[in-house]
């Protein structure tokens, strides 16, 4: 499988290199769907310029990325394009290896269940053969690398690519079972944008199950493991925060990065849900709605973890979807990361009743974003309502797809393990 993967990597790198050299690169770097105030390359360059002048890069409310990123680019600014291409390659390879390992475990579980005759006879369609599962890791890598969203994000040099790489490495280390590295990568991801904190729950669930520790609140071994993980996670987070402090010599990155993500002061339109609401809101209610919107992202962790505790990898996928829909400054790069996971559960797609509608809506909305932006900003014939309508439709379609995937996955897993007929009629 190394040969097709290498071919795919070469193809992906060629496409990105070709686009970097064309005149589209500047055009793409300005699109609000692809870059946000957090991830724009223009702002990284501004921050670097301020750093070179000896001023804090966070002065003037331009730069909102973490100090480690600015120091990384301090050394790599001349090789920025190569850095982003390498980042995409790392993400794809990490996802490839992670899915390969996951497939092996799934296949093993399936074999045991088959031998124990726990599958009813009419569930044969749900059973995956080794042949299909052989191609899934390559498909995952392909879905990530050749996704137009990823290519746009890479060509725009959005730091979202770096976030995706860290999350992909976190997923790889979690699935391999390496507790320390998983905690370190998760803390790095949280350090960059706060929302991956919700991925703690699926990571814990997966690692405890992998080590055969029963997930039971009354058992000491469970809490001991949780304490270990929390210690490693919080420890590495603490180390990174202190390192940032010593790098820059002040604490002013905390309000600029985390304060910015949580309090959403910049209302540039993007594909998220925050900007329009907060543009229309009265000051009096701003704090209340801010809390509501931010809690919304963290809130789904609890019910999803309870319901999906047998399927922690699916839970990771769901959490990534929830984060990229509801975060304060989403971009298409975030969406590309969770879309890459679709082939892993492709055997369930036959049962998704509205997949056609949802895919059509997503496709149409992606095409309509630049059209309505042009009509609003350049032609002046439309206004922000039109653009927000498309944003809403886009997010509703994503949410719809996420919900039906969960429903079908739960139904399939339940019917697979309980001795009754397959509920192909998923209501």
């Amino acid at each position, binding site marked *: 499988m190394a040969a097709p993967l290498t071919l795919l990597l070469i193809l992906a790198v060629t496409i990105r290199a070709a686009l970097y050299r064309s005149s589209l690169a500047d055009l793409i770097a300005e699109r609000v769907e692809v870059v946000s105030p957090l991830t724009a390359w223009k702002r990284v360059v501004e921050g670097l310029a301020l750093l070179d002048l000896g001023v804090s890069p966070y002065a003037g409310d331009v730069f909102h990325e973490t100090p480690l990123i600015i120091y990384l680019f301090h050394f790599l600014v001349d090789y920025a394009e190569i850095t982003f291409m390498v980042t995409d390659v790392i993400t794809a390879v990490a996802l490839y290896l992670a899915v390969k390992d996951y497939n092996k475990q799934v296949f093993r579980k399936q074999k045991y269940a088959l031998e124990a005759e726990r599958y009813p006879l009419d569930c044969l369609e749900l059973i995956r053969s080794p042949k*299909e599962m052989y191609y899934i890791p390559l498909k995952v890598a392909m879905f990530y690398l050749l996704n137009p969203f990823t290519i746009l994000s890479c060509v725009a040099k959005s730091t979202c690519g770096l976030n995706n790489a860290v999350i992909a490495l976190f997923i790889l280390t979690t699935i391999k079972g390496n507790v320390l590295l998983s905690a370190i990568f998760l803390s790095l991801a949280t350090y960059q944008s706060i929302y991956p904190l919700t991925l703690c729950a699926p990571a814990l669930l997966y690692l405890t199950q992998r080590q055969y520790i029963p997930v039971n609140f009354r058992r000491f071994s469970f809490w001991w493991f949780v304490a270990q993980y929390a210690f490693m996670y919080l420890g590495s987070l603490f180390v990174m925060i202190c390192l940032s402090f010593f790098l820059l010599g002040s604490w002013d990155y905390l309000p600029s990065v985390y304060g910015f993500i949580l309090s959403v002061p910049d209302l540039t339109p993007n594909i998220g849900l925050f900007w329009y609401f907060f543009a229309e809101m009265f000051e009096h209610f701003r704090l209340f709605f801010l809390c509501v919107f931010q809690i919304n992202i963290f809130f789904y962790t609890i019910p999803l973890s309870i319901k999906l505790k047998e399927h922690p990898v699916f839970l990771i996928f769901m959490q990534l979807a929830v984060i990229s829909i509801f975060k304060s400054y989403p971009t298409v790069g975030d969406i590309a990361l969770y879309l890459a996971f679709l082939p892993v559960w492709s055997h369930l797609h036959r049962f998704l009743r509205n997949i056609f509608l949802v895919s059509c809506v997503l496709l*149409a909305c992606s095409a309509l974003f630049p059209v*309505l932006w042009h009509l609003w900003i350049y*032609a002046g014939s439309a206004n922000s309502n039109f653009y927000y309508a498309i944003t809403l439709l886009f997010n509703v379609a994503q949410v719809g797809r996420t919900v039906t995937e969960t429903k079908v996955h739960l139904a399939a897993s339940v019917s697979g393990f309980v001795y009754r007929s397959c509920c192909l009629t998923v209501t």
Partner: protein
Amino acid sequence: MTGSQEIRAPDLSLLTIQQDSQYDFLFYLNFICSQSASLIKIFLCSGMPVDWLVKTMQARGLEVFTQTFSRTLPFPDENKERYMVKGTNVYGILRAPRAPRTEALVLSAPCTQGDHNNQAVGLLLGLAQYFRNQIYWAKDIIFLINEHDLIGMQAWLEGYHHTNTTGMDWSPLQGRGGSIQAALSLELSSDVITSMDLVLEGLNGQLPNLDLANLFYAFCQKIGVLCTIQGKLQRNDWDSVSGYSHSVQTMMLMVMKQASGRPWGDHGLFLRYHIEAATIKGINSFRQYKTDTNTIGRLLEGMYRKLNNLLERLHQSYFFYLMPSLSHFVSIGYYMPAFGLLAVILLLRALDLWVQLASPPPGTEDGVVDTEQMWSPDVLSVLTPLVISHLTGVALYYLPIHFQKMALEHFPVSDTEAVVLTAIAVYTAGLALPHNTHRFVSGEGTEHGWRVLKLVAVLYLAVLLGCTALINFSLGFILALTLVPVAAFVTPHVPKVPSAFVLVILSPACTLLFSVFFFQELQEVPISFQDGWVLYLSVISQGILDHSLYGSLVYPLIALLVYPCWLLFWNILFWE
């Protein structure tokens, strides 16, 4: 100003100002360029009497500036007979006496050689003098005389807004007037007129706010000047068949003009910068009741006083409308559902194909494995037509201009003809493709294969038509009318020859040919087939020129997106 004055201009005929009892001026200016040898020399040297204009405007108390520009067209423009264009724009700014200089209005008149627009410049200068003496101006007024009509206007607007989207060379503007709120462009070829024609269609089918059109019409009615749209007068008998068909004809003319994506007056380029603008043409036909320049002056003065009182940009009324007459309009809420219903046809066909594809295949032993295997070769066989169609589209976009030199060496045609004939040749060569594509992909296509390709093509067409209809409704609607029936019914199993004929008849190129004839019919100037063909070739060349000069999107849209989509359906027809 009382009394009459005579101003002697070098080698020009007498210019007289007469006194009018109600208003203080009547400015009568007559450019008779054929009379004076030195004036011909001025036109030949500089094309426009720049120095005289500068002096005249300065004499009227305006701040005068000039801008030079130059542009080499990708190939000669045979309609306007220009290739390497050099010119100068002259503009004078009337500063508002008591207001901060933050907003401006523009009155422009294109200055071309010959008699075409000779009265407009005179009227503009007369108005400038009159406006200078008034105290109620709250916005600066910029009197612009642009050379080489649209090219000069593009240069001026780019200079004013510090953008450079079309690669023109222009000198920076020395004087500015703040953000422009509205603009009017004058075209007047005779000193008396019978009606004023309002032209609204701008670049890429953009229209000014309906309030501007309503304002102009209301003023015309108040002053008693006949106002027309699309050159047609309004009728009062809405209920009769002939009255209704007259309105339909007017509306269809507007649809045709909007679909072409060209600016139909100098105002068309303002709209892109979010400036409401319209062109006012004076028409002198064989009517008894004539309106003189004085009345036109009063009309324009009234318009500008109204625009002067604007507190914010015109945005309250519709931006998307079609006008069957000046007192009736069809808003987007009425015409979009028609388009929506056409798009629904495509979506239903896509749904039908999806259901056919997703239904389980006829029973085999290891059913699961077979379905999975069938997917990969079909994806490849779908990808090949897609890539080849788009490469043909790219060839249609690039080859006509870039291979112009090569075409000139081999064929005895002029530059423009070379470009247009190359475009037609590439378009026709694309029709030969399906047979080659299938030899390229090993094995024949399967039943499954063409369904997947048709699903992709139908969804692609639906999204493309939707986006086009949002930006330029008329273009999207015309393309939808011709492409949707074809897209819905084509399969490899329909009879090949009649379907191929229908598919070619409804392809974008033939639609354009029929539209040319239809447009001429609507304007009540029907033409013969030969003239129609020549007009068709010139329309294609104008389309390519508009794209490179002003950034019109019609040619790249059709070449890069609509034509490859149509080729996919051609491919499906010849799938076996």
